């Protein structure tokens, strides 16, 4: 068993309205960042876990996302594993 750190990025699905990202986009533009074209806001979770291999850690993290951390109706996720 080794300790792995899994970083999970959960983002609102691209086809859905993201009002939080839009609000941040408007605030950045109001600050003078006229070059900002779009902002999307999601969640970043860091999970410390024990696993035998990196693959096992990644597989378990995907199950966590499917069952709890992301809503399959509205969100997509990505996981990256490091030792």
């Amino acid at each position, binding site marked *: 068993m080794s300790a792995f750190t899994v970083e999970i990025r959960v983002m*609102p699905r691209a086809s*859905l*309205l993201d*009002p*939080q990202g839009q*609000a941040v986009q408007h605030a950045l533009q109001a600050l003078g960042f006229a070059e900002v074209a779009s902002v999307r806001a999601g969640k970043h979770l860091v999970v410390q876990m024990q696993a035998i291999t990196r693959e096992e850690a990644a597989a378990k993290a995907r199950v966590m996302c499917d069952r*709890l*951390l992301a*809503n399959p*109706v*509205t969100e997509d996720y990505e996981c990256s594993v490091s030792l």
Partner: protein
Amino acid sequence: MQRVAVVVFPGSNCDADTLDAARAAGSDAYYVWHRDTDLQQADAVILPGGFSYGDYLRSGAIARFSPVLRAVAAHARAGGAVLGICNGFQILCEAGLLPGALMRNARLKFLSRPVRVRVEAPDTPFTQSYDRGEELTLPIAHGDGRYVADAETAAMLEANGQVVWRYVAENPNGSTHDIAGICNAGRNVVGIMPHPERRNAPVLGGQDGARVFLSLEARNATQHAGDMRAVDGRHLRV
């Protein structure tokens, strides 16, 4: 008299109003704590509004794993009536007992005010004392009230008449197809974003929500007697 279980989660805050509304309609209503696994022979289960688990992660996402949800799912599978109001609606979607999901209001603000909704489906346990097309004033109080479903699911909801309430005049939160409430394919599991329990007596500004709870008793009357019954002096249409 129907036995109505009102589930209490940590963070529920409409449980007392919901219990009162069910009792005012003549039901034998009682609380069930979220860690209980026995619904005590409930005829109907109501998941009330509030902020279960502080809305952490997503509204309803953690409550879905409360022990009581297994019993609620079994009750629903057996055809038992289940109503989710506001946070309860969010929990039913997270639990997969209703399709779709509820997301942040399109204009981000938490909204707490009366809105107009139309009854689109009077053929559920919680709407059968309403007429199809009847318009109601009900209060909303939500930050995550924007119902979303993919195009295929939304088309299925429309084709099967599973849209139970729809916002009229204005859509406060940007929901798909102006949806304010839906039911499952079996029509026994119902979710509504507005709060009928906050509008069940003249002293609350109106009683358009009362028949959500009276409908349960009307169904009871139909099942047991097939005649008119009076609950709190009010004759039910059965």
